[in-house]
């Protein structure tokens, strides 16, 4: 993303849009995480409460997914260092 040709008014406007999108991304990541971990960890519907085993699975699934996303984000940033990502930081 090359914002170097943006006026300061345009940069300010874009910053607000990005902040809004970050919140929307976070909320979608949250519901996506709930769906993924629920689908993987919950397979027993003889009870409506989470079993100890399911609970542990959910916690590990959540933690691991976040670490996974962070690692992808780091690699992705490196890979794109020569293209838009670098221009963005300029």
């Amino acid at each position, binding site marked *: *993303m090359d914002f170097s040709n943006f006026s300061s008014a345009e940069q300010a406007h874009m910053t607000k849009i*990005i902040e809004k999108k970050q919140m929307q991304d*976070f909320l979608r990541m949250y519901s996506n995480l709930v769906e993924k971990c629920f689908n993987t960890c919950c397979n027993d519907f003889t009870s409506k409460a*989470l079993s100890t085993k399911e609970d542990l699975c959910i916690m590990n699934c*959540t933690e691991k997914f976040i670490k996974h996303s962070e690692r992808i984000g780091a690699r992705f940033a490196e890979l794109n260092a020569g293209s838009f990502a670098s221009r963005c930081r300029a």
Partner: protein
Amino acid sequence: MSFLGRGGNAPSGVNAEKIDMAITELDTVTDFFNRMVSSCHAKCISARYAEPDLNKGESVCIDRCVAKFNEVQKKVGEKLQNRGATNAGGTASTFGSL
């Protein structure tokens, strides 16, 4: 001021920020609901479709599924809050340092 035009051409006397926040909340609840419908359908409904009604087993399964999905939502939400993991989703964060 409204971002993304979501508040629309808000008539006078309408706070577009407030409307935007309400829309975000509504969209979030709807997204959770739709994923719950989809997940519980996969967990509880037999794919044979021999009859049009939910049988006893399916009905009980749905009720428990909703309770469990809701509990998972809370657990994951608490985990995310404790971790302050606002930076794990999407790439918008990559461009935050505009």
